[in-house]
């Protein structure tokens, strides 16, 4: 009998080993089945600054990030998602709102910034207080006037959700949902919000688009008077400047709030001008309702102060003089930065 038993055990073991191997093969296939979705770097862009090797984008990770981005679960009472204040058709800004409008109808103090080309961003928020895209969502999630939630609650809600545990396991492998995975999934979605198909892009990349005479004249003025700060084809220098806005009653100290250095008083991050025709209102507090008002500010409304950027005092006096014709030409050029393919890209929309 004994040999038979041994043989039986051996067979069982063989089957078990076989099953384990099959299981391993299956799970390996499962991992392989994730579809890589690498960031496409437009030829007219510099190298990305986000550490993509730390968080390789997959189609599944991007889709999980998109689901999270549009899910009110991230807020205290389920009413506010990231997408509430970052609306795709407005280049993921809060169209029509000077400052962001959050939970319980509470108002923030700053204008909701665009979500686009963030892989090239070195600083987040108007004051640059956050330096890593993966750490950025903590701000709005925990801000009492935005989503007013606590991260441990968010993680618990996700763990108890009927869909999320399986989706996270699929993207990140088995294990508990944690802040690392949540933030990386959100980053995967936001990194893919790339705007590089505007008329200007197709002109500059020789892809067949031609600019009109006015648009070309606007581009020339832009290069002379605006491109020092709104530099490269990202249209931002990723730096901080005081652009001569009269402080409001709230007296937002801008970059000073983060560095406590006197030279940073009232400095704000240069926003990209991509899709600028769709991101009204303008400035960190949304004080200007249209592009005409913005150009009127630069040509005749700049207020002098100890930290005013010297670039805005080219002749020793505050202001970048612009004629009405030049303003019209600049606006014509700025409209070539509108990227409808991005603004209407169905894969970036709430599903």
């Amino acid at each position, binding site marked *: 009998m004994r040999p038979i038993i041994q043989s039986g055990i051996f067979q069982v073991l063989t089957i078990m080993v076989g099953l384990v191997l099959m299981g391993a093969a299956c799970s390996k296939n499962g991992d392989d089945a994730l579809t890589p979705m690498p960031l496409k770097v437009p030829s007219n862009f510099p190298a990305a600054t986000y550490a993509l090797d730390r968080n390789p984008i997959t189609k599944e990770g991007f889709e999980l990030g998109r689901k999270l981005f549009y899910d009110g679960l991230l807020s205290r009472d389920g009413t506010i998602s990231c997408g509430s204040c970052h609306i795709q058709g407005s280049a993921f800004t809060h169209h029509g709102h000077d400052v962001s409008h959050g939970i319980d109808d509470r108002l923030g103090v700053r204008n909701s910034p665009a979500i686009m080309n963030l892989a090239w961003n070195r600083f987040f928020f108007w004051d*640059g207080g956050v330096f890593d895209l993966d*750490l950025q969502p903590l*701000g709005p999630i925990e801000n009492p006037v935005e989503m007013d939630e606590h991260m441990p609650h968010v993680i618990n809600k996700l763990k108890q959700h009927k869909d999320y545990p399986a989706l996270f396991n699929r993207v990140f492998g088995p294990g508990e949902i944690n802040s*690392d995975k949540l933030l990386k999934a959100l980053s995967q979605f936001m990194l893919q919000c790339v705007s590089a198909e505007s008329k200007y892009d197709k002109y500059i990349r020789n892809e067949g688009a031609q600019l009109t005479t006015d648009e070309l004249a606007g581009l020339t003025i832009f290069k002379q008077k605006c491109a020092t700060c709104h530099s490269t084809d990202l249209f931002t220098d990723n730096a901080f400047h005081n652009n001569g806005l009269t402080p409001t009653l709230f007296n937002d100290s801008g970059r000073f709030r983060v560095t406590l250095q006197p030279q940073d008083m009232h400095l704000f991050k240069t926003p990209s001008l991509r899709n600028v025709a769709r991101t009204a209102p303008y400035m960190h507090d949304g004080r200007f309702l249209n592009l005409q008002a913005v150009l009127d500010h630069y040509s005749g409304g700049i207020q002098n102060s100890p930290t005013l950027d010297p670039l805005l005092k080219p002749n020793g006096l505050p202001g970048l003089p612009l004629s009405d014709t030049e303003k019209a030409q600049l606006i014509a050029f700025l409209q070539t930065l509108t990227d409808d393919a991005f603004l209407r890209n169905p894969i970036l929309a709430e599903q």
Partner: protein
Amino acid sequence: MFYSLLITLVTFTTACKKEAQPEFLPGDKGELVVEFDNIVGGTDLQLNTGVYTNAAGEQFKISMLNYFISNIVLTNEDGSTYTVPRDSSYFLIKEENPHREIKLSNIPAGNYTGISFLLGIDSIKNTAPVGERTGCLDPAGDGAGMYWTWNSGYIFLKMEGPADAATSADKKFRYHIGGFGGYSSTTINNIKKFNLAVPAGSRAEVRKNKAHGPVIHILADAGKVMNGSTNVSIAANTTVMFSPYSVNIANNYASMFSVDHVHND
């Protein structure tokens, strides 16, 4: 003759040492415990109930006291040092927790007479990728509430409590002190380093297979947060967070720790 005598003596001495039972062997590892005993002045801190008076003459209670301890280095009596591995060297001490002690394991056996650490989190960890922020450094985990989301960085020390002198609506003072020196441009640095010696004649004896590691018992005087080079007035500074004034509070807490005693059993 002289040399041969010397050699004989040396041999004899060595032989004697060899005969003595060594207390530990090279390669032995053991445990060491660092206990943080929060006090105010000369009394044990009583959360929510104890009434204390600061140097400005204002009465207050303490409803929360949390602080980060990191980058621990132990000094052996022979002068050598042992640096606790970086990723096992971040701890959040909370008065509200029943246990306020740090258990260090895999410490080389030996007799330790000094300990150094930071109150706060170093700049490398403050700027680390999110995947390296686990345990007490996880803003969604044990580190919740000890992190500034709008100005990426950890809050090193958080002390709050009710005080009649407070000018806030809920009559509470709130001191949230952090600032690691800045990511890309310089700003305040409120990380404080402590080099503490154990009392003369004592030592922490780390041994292999000891049932309980030696305990370095540290007193943390929360009263020092308010009193020191700047005597903080709650009425004048009810809320201190990321601001130039926070440097004064950090300079005060730079003397809040001392080793009271060591026990080895």
